[in-house]
């Protein structure tokens, strides 16, 4: 036995001496929700930052989906083991702002004497994450939905490209199915609440909720159960009913049905570029979101996520966080991130730089999202959405709308039910957050 003890002691001593010199760099944790190709890009991004200087080390840790990251963060925060930075999606904005658990990005940067000029940011991005004139979170991966299409299928059906309006697009989709070119002319994306409902109302300039979609206060109520949006859901139901639009269902990611060449079109986040470029073996292209005939299309709204700084850390750590944010805001970083992932650049200089490089001449589809986000002056209906309890409401709306797709309810009733369930959640949020904006 004795030699074994000695060996163990030696091993222990080795470990101790190995750990001897303390690391000078401040290490911070960054929890994110990027998986697959995008997860690899995050690792590259963090490596770029870590290699660029010696004082700080960012550790990127994937924690599952957006929901799982948020849940993990909540559990960690309650146990006082929260990371310094957490990535949270755009719909969790109010949850994060009113959590009492975050340091507003504007305050953090001011305290650390780092410059951050909101006016250089793309308007719908910065307005989304700003409240009371203060940028609350660091815009990170911003996207907006666009229409990807299989050009081979469109050519075979005798079309050059998809029509700009729904009135032109719908007959094209029907033709693709009827001519037997594809059994799936369009696939319903998993986040259709965002791409087909919210963005539809922004682009077509119709109100989704009162008080400028919640921007003017928590006493907002949903009003999407009338007018054009009812028509939009009717159309979706029609397309699903006739088999033109397919539902991917569990076990299959909708985008995969597009990249495999099975489905002819998908309306999805511009970040889908990463997957399409990697997997599509056919002639593909993209276009702006379709809109209603006779409407001047407005800017679409953003999706994606921002980085939130959590409370409860030492000033040293916050110094590191500010340095990382500063690095993210650099034009070079933004241009690289935009081109590597398909997300939109969040600053105007980054967009200009990419343009000056001739990037959009070579990759015209990469400009679609940026142009669509920046077109025109945002109206009250296209500023964005500020909805409390939005995870809850999202699930309720999708449940009701899909009940209409299934034919369990008439469309109008489904939307009425969605509105009343949504409003109930809004009132509860107002009750809990009374007095806040």
């Amino acid at each position, binding site marked *: 036995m004795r030699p074994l003890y000695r060996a163990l002691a030696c091993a222990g001593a080795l470990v101790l001496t190995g750990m001897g010199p303390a690391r000078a760099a401040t290490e911070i944790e960054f929890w994110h929700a990027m998986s697959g190709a995008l997860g690899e890009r995050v690792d590259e991004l963090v490596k770029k930052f870590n290699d660029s200087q010696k004082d700080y080390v960012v550790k990127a840790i994937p924690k599952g989906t957006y929901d799982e990251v*948020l*849940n993990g963060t*909540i559990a960690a925060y309650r146990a006082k083991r929260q990371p310094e930075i957490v990535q949270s999606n755009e719909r969790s904005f109010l949850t994060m702002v009113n*959590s*009492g658990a975050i340091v507003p990005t504007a305050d953090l940067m001011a305290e650390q004497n780092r410059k951050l000029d909101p006016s250089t940011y793309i308007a719908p991005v910065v307005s989304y994450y700003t409240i009371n004139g203060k940028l609350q979170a660091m815009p990170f991966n911003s996207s907006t939905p666009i229409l990807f299409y299989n050009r081979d299928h469109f050519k075979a059906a005798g079309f050059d490209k998809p029509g700009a309006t729904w009135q032109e697009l719908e007959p094209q989709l029907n033709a693709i199915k009827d001519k037997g070119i594809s059994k799936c002319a369009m696939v319903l994306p998993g986040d259709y609440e965002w791409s087909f409902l919210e963005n539809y109302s922004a682009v077509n300039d119709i109100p989704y909720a009162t008080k400028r979609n919640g921007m003017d206060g928590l006493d907002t109520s949903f009003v999407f159960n009338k007018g054009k949006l009812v028509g939009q859901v009717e159309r979706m139901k029609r397309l699903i009913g006739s088999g033109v639009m397919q539902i991917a*269902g569990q076990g*299959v990611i909708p985008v995969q049905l597009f990249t495999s060449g099975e489905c002819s079109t998908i309306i999805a986040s511009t970040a889908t570029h990463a997957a399409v470029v990697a997997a599509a073996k056919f002639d593909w292209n993209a276009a702006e979101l379709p809109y209603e005939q006779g409407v001047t299309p407005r800017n679409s709204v953003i999706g994606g996520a921002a980085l939130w700084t959590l409370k409860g850390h030492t000033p040293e750590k916050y110094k590191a966080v500010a340095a990382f944010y500063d690095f993210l805001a650099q034009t070079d970083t933004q241009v690289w991130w935009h081109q590597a992932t398909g997300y939109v650049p969040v600053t105007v200089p980054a967009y200009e730089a990419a343009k000056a490089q001739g990037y959009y001449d070579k990759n015209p589809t990469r400009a679609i999202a940026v142009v669509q986000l920046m077109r025109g002056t945002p109206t009250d209906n296209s500023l964005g959405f500020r909805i409390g309890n939005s995870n809850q409401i999202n699930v309720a709306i999708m449940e009701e709308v899909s009940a209409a797709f299934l034919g369990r309810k008439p469309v109008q009733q489904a939307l009425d039910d969605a509105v009343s369930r949504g409003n109930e959640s809004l009132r509860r949020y107002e009750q809990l*957050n009374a007095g806040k904006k």
Partner: protein
Amino acid sequence: MPRLRWPFLRKPAASAGQPESGLKRAHFNEWRLPFWLLAPQLFILLLFFFIPSIRALVQAFQLTDPFGAMTQWVGFQNFERLFRSSVYWTSVQVTLVFTLAQNVLTLSVALLLAFATNHIARGRGAYRTVLLLPYAIAPAIAGIMLAFLFNPRVGPIAQMLQSAGFDWDPNRNSMHALALIVMAASWKHICYNYIFLVAALLSVPHSILESAYLDGAGPIQRFLRISLPMIAPTLFFLVVINFVYGLFETFAIVDATTRGGPAGSTSILVYKVYQDGFVTLDLGSSAAQSVVLMALALLLTFAQFRFVERRVNYSV
């Protein structure tokens, strides 16, 4: 050192004559030993059952934000909201249909397979191994596998069904989705039922079966007239276990197979607790729902002890 007295060294207590069931208080006249013997288990129960249960009970009467920064006492508001919500009652209905269908399917298939085991001459070992395999597969994997096999766009089984002229689509048809989770849940649980039933069938006395055989009863008649009544206690036990399984342990399967969809048509109660608590962060409602489920579990346990345990003799 406390003086230990071992139960078997003691002479019979005054109550001798009555059947002894389990250890009685009189066996230990000193509290420390039993306490330390029980402590590990009690500690685990405290940590994973009592503390969470009490927290759920408290939270059911609160309105709180996910981070726990703001908390309001709202009395029975969460329960009121729950019982007013048509979505919740739909979930109750779905759960009822699901657990019943799952119970019937699991038991009948397991019974058929157990019956067949006794009549298989060759390869009995292989047959049993194949049947027991699903039990070793994690529910999430089983769910994803079935979701894929039955996916109307890419699943091989779904395409077989469609080419046979059956318009299978669990994404658009609630009944198909429900059938899918019943299948997934049963498939996972058939082997558990099967083990118990095989053991029970083996313990049916051969002499009785032989005399029935001599009287001219065929295998099916022998099974229905003799084996089945004799294994009734096991069947009872399995019915209760299957209910508990269907009500409380099928979360992972639903999450992996349908995520409660389409349009909430497979959102069983236990899945709704998860979805409302961890996806939509409606902690109050989720806590209220888990209190309701807890009451249901108590009721089932009570029923089991009161009606099943008393009448059923497990020493088959």
